[in-house]
């Protein structure tokens, strides 16, 4: 249990992130890309300016998409592995696999779903280029706020657990998170730059596919990394079980 273990977890986390990224890429290509193409058709039909193509559509929707999704998977895989190293044995009585899956679920919520509910993913043709700075700042702010609050209420829950018991401490932590995020939703500025003629169903489908990509990514990561971490931290569980079973059999 030292620095080498952390390095090992980090490597496994990045590999698990890559594997989860491959799964997410399949979902992005199959479910997401058709919506991107339709949104671009809408954009071309409603725009008078003709944009110069720097990277062709066929590259953007394949190699470009793959680069983005895989780098995203590896990066978050590494960060989540470090968070896992911190959470293991500290959040509760969960083994490596359960800790990894729990962490992935929380990461999906804190990193993606909570910011998404305030500033959802948008297809091409939505969003005024002049406000890109403001929208980017708000999105990253919302993400940072959500992650920091998730960490804070987890620590709060741990502190409350001896007094309230695990159940009510967890309920209190989740309520605190919900209230604080609700306040952030209320006070952060609204962004709505959807053109009037943009098809509502296309927007809905695009956002659902964006959610599907993230759900695949984090579920895949939780399962793959959990298994890799379990094998690293609890090697040969079968042998250990046999050792324990021998005295009882006599």
């Amino acid at each position, binding site marked *: *249990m*030292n*620095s080498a*273990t*952390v*390095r090992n977890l*980090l490597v496994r986390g990045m590999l698990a992130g890559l594997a989860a990224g491959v799964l997410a890429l399949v979902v*992005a290509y199959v479910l*997401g*890309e058709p919506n*991107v193409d339709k949104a671009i058709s809408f954009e071309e039909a409603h725009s008078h300016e003709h944009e110069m193509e*720097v*990277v062709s559509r066929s*590259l*953007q*929707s394949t190699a*470009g*998409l*793959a*680069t*983005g*999704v895989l*780098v*995203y998977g*590896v*990066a*978050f895989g*590494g*960060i989540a592995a*470090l968070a896992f190293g*911190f959470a*293991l*044995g*500290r959040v509760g*009585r*969960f*083994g*490596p696999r359960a800790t990894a899956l729990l962490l992935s679920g929380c990461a999906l919520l804190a990193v993606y779903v909570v*910011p998404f509910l305030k*500033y959802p*993913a*948008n*297809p*091409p043709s939505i*969003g005024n280029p002049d406000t*890109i700075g403001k*929208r*980017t*700042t708000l*999105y*990253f702010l919302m993400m940072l706020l959500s992650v920091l609050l998730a960490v804070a209420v987890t620590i709060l829950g741990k502190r409350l657990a001896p007094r309230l018991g695990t159940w009510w401490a967890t309920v209190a932590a989740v309520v605190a998170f919900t209230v604080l995020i609700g306040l952030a939703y209320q006070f952060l500025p609204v962004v709505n730059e959807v053109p009037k003629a943009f098809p509502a169903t296309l927007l809905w489908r695009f956002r659902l*596919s*964006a959610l599907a*990509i993230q759900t695949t990514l984090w579920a895949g990561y939780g399962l793959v990394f959990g298994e890799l971490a379990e094998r690293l*931290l*609890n090697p040969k569980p079968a042998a250990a*079980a046999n050792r*324990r*079973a021998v005295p*009882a059999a006599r």
Partner: protein
Amino acid sequence: MAQTVAQPTATTPVVPAKLPLKAIAPWAVFFGILMLVLLYFVGAEQGATSVFNGTDVHEWVHDARHLLGFPCH
């Protein structure tokens, strides 16, 4: 007779050993920052801010940026 004796469950829940914070910290600082730089290049480079001139990075990860939920343009 022997087979009716209840076997103790193979795994009793134990709290896994904690990794010392001192072991995590150096990795978290260096790799944490590296990973955040990667996320920046996927999510925001040549959108709101630019490290490199042009729009090549933006255009290359264009679809990923939209589908991963980042504001693109």
